[in-house]
């Protein structure tokens, strides 16, 4: 009795897993791919702004402060705030920011205006960099999508994350032997191989998948579940602000300007104290607020992390140079807040060094691979059945074609994003929006591609075509970089700029994986037959020459490559 109930339950979970998964797969795949790229947002931006001078490691922070202060004194003598970001950790340029309050609007109110510049470390002069969406746009898209209002996008992505969680939990329920099949991968067995691969990509990074989905949902809980807040604190902006005050405490109490002019010390005066307490060259950013006022203070943040937590930020009195405050990252003792913070830290992985960052990235790609293999498994299973019956439903043909465009198509589109960055003139006015338009135009073309060529190419060949395109686009990126910038492999490898060199090399590795996949599709024996069949004829049983072995490797390479 209990066994049947259990069986029914598993059956219904299977149904839920299959259909809930299929409906949301494309968007989830997009979120996983762009989110994984987002772990390298600064690095991608660095590559996309080749005007940023290569880092010179021999210059220490004392000199940088001198360079930056000199420049700030020249361009922003009257600014009320000065900030300097150092090229340390994942920052790749010396940049300065300031708040200008000298301009007055027509009604007499002071207009606050933020400005920023990147400085060349060797000359101390500002560098003009091309405008780009960079890696941040890729990162931003994984939760805010694009072309639609962000609040709507938060709702959509949260809904999809909810589906993802349902998919994960129902997946665990229907997976009968998680531990017994932990290492199981049977190659060359059509849908069994796809199922094994789907299982491997789901089960091995399962802690990551659950963490990332659950914390992703939490990130937008204030958007998606506002009534919980309203029930306790009441509606309206004032009550919302009261909640924010309670929960998101700023533990550094910064005084407002008193209106009394005073002479401020320079940044270098406090360096001795900082270095004595926290060591040399440990500053991530430094800034001064209320410049020229008696209540002016200097704030600086230390580079790096203590475990998962930020290093403290320090506040100095800018008149006498005394240490006023050492913050602990604005944390409150509340357990709920701590848990929320922990989840968000885990999701963003900001504490990761380079190796852990790669682990995050690969886990993210495995998540994308899990979704991709799920989509392919759905189609492969039904294709086998259809071939036996000699008839394929419209739905199956639709999904088969969509799979090509969504899985490989997105990867091609991201390559195009990088290509557009290099090919548009550096001073082109709407660069940022056209880079991203390029991505989506390309992705649309890749979606349409299987439909245009439906009569000429089999699904298998369409996979091969798009993998070939991907291989070419990724493979030629380093060459394009060589032709259009000075930051090419020839320079970056020898100057030890591992981030830029790493970008180019990674693109080459991706390209090789795609090329290998395409090679297997086109040249593995048995596939020659496929060339003579079209998708329409594909309904007959023997034209389905999609050898599982080929697919297995193709998708694996594709996933690894992403």
């Amino acid at each position, binding site marked *: 009795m209990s066994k049947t109930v259990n069986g029914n339950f598993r059956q219904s979970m299977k149904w839920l897993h299959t259909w809930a998964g299929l409906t949301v797969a494309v968007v989830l795949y997009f979120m996983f791919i762009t989110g994984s790229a987002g772990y390298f947002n600064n690095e991608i931006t660095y590559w996309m702004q080749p005007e940023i001078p290569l880092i010179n490691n021999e210059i220490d922070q004392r000199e940088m402060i001198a360079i930056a202060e000199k420049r700030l004194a020249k361009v922003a003598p009257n600014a009320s705030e000065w900030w300097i970001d150092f090229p340390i950790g994942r920052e790749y340029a010396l940049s300065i920011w300031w708040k200008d309050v000298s301009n007055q609007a027509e009604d007499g109110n002071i207009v606050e205006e933020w400005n920023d510049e990147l400085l060349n470390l060797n000359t101390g002069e500002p560098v003009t960099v091309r405008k780009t969406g960079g890696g941040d746009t890729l990162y931003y898209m994984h939760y805010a999508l694009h072309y639609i209002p962000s609040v709507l996008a938060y709702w959509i992505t949260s809904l999809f994350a909810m589906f993802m969680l349902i998919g994960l939990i129902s997946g665990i329920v229907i997976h009968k032997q998680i*531990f*017994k099949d*932990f*290492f*199981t*991968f*049977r*190659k060359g067995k059509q849908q069994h191989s796809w199922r094994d691969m789907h299982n*491997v990509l789901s089960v*091995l*990074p399962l*802690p*990551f998948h659950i963490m990332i989905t659950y914390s992703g949902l939490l990130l937008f809980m204030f958007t998606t579940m506002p009534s919980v807040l309203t029930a306790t604190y009441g509606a309206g902006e004032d009550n919302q602000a009261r909640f924010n005050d309670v929960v998101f405490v700023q533990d550094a109490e910064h005084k407002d300007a008193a209106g009394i002019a005073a002479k401020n010390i320079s940044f270098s005066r406090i360096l001795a104290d900082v270095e004595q307490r926290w060591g040399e060259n440990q500053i991530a950013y430094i800034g001064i607020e209320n410049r020229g006022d008696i209540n002016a203070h200097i704030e600086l943040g230390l580079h790096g992390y203590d*475990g*998962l937590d930020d290093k403290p930020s320090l506040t100095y009195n800018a008149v006498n140079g005394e240490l006023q405050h050492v913050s602990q990252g604005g944390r409150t003792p509340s357990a709920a807040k701590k848990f929320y913070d*922990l989840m968000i830290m*885990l999701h963003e*992985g900001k*504490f*990761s060094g380079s*190796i*852990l960052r790669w*682990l*995050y990235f*690969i*886990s993210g790609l*495995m998540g994308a691979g899990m979704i991709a293999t799920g989509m392919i498994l759905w189609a492969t299973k039904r294709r086998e059945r259809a071939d036996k019956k000699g008839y394929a439903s419209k739905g199956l043909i639709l999904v088969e074609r969509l799979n090509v465009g969504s899985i490989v198509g997105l990867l091609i589109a991201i390559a195009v994003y990088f290509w557009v960055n290099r090919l548009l003139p550096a001073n082109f006015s709407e660069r940022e929006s056209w880079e991203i338009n390029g991505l989506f135009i390309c992705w649309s073309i890749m979606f349409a591609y299987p439909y245009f060529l439906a009569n000429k190419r089999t699904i298998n060949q369409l996979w091969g075509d798009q993998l070939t395109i991907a291989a070419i686009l990724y493979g030629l990126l380093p060459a394009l970089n060589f032709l259009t910038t000075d930051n090419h492999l020839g320079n970056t490898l020898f100057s030890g700029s591992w981030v830029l060199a790493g970008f180019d090399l990674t693109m080459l590795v991706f390209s090789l994986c795609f090329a290998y996949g395409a090679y297997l599709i086109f040249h593995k024996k048995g596939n020659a037959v496929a060339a003579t069949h079209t998708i329409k004829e594909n309904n007959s049983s023997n034209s389905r020459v999609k050898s599982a072995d080929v697919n297995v490797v193709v998708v694996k390479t594709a996933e690894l490559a992403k």
Partner: protein
Amino acid sequence: MMMLFALFFMFVGLIVFSLSMKRNFKQCYPQIKRPSLRLLFIFRLIGYLSLSISIYLCVLMQGLGLGLVIWFGAVTIASLLQVIFLTYRPQWTISSSLITLLCIAWLTGINV
């Protein structure tokens, strides 16, 4: 250096753990038709023990939070490698795992 020990126990743990599964055992040792259940049980025990030691070392070195994050990330990739070895080069699983470990040691230098 400690990190290398943690990785060593992780790889050993995964190898032994996979050997405790009948299917994977036969992949590695096709000549042994019927591995005794007691042997598999001992393998499983050593596997769990070894993985526990590697978690413990990670946490000891990096603190509870970061240590667990690193361990889960590393074990994911290590077991993915293990799956690939078992599928494509089953007889070499043990040696290829250990070679991988040596490569990591060489790549990351002594400063791990």
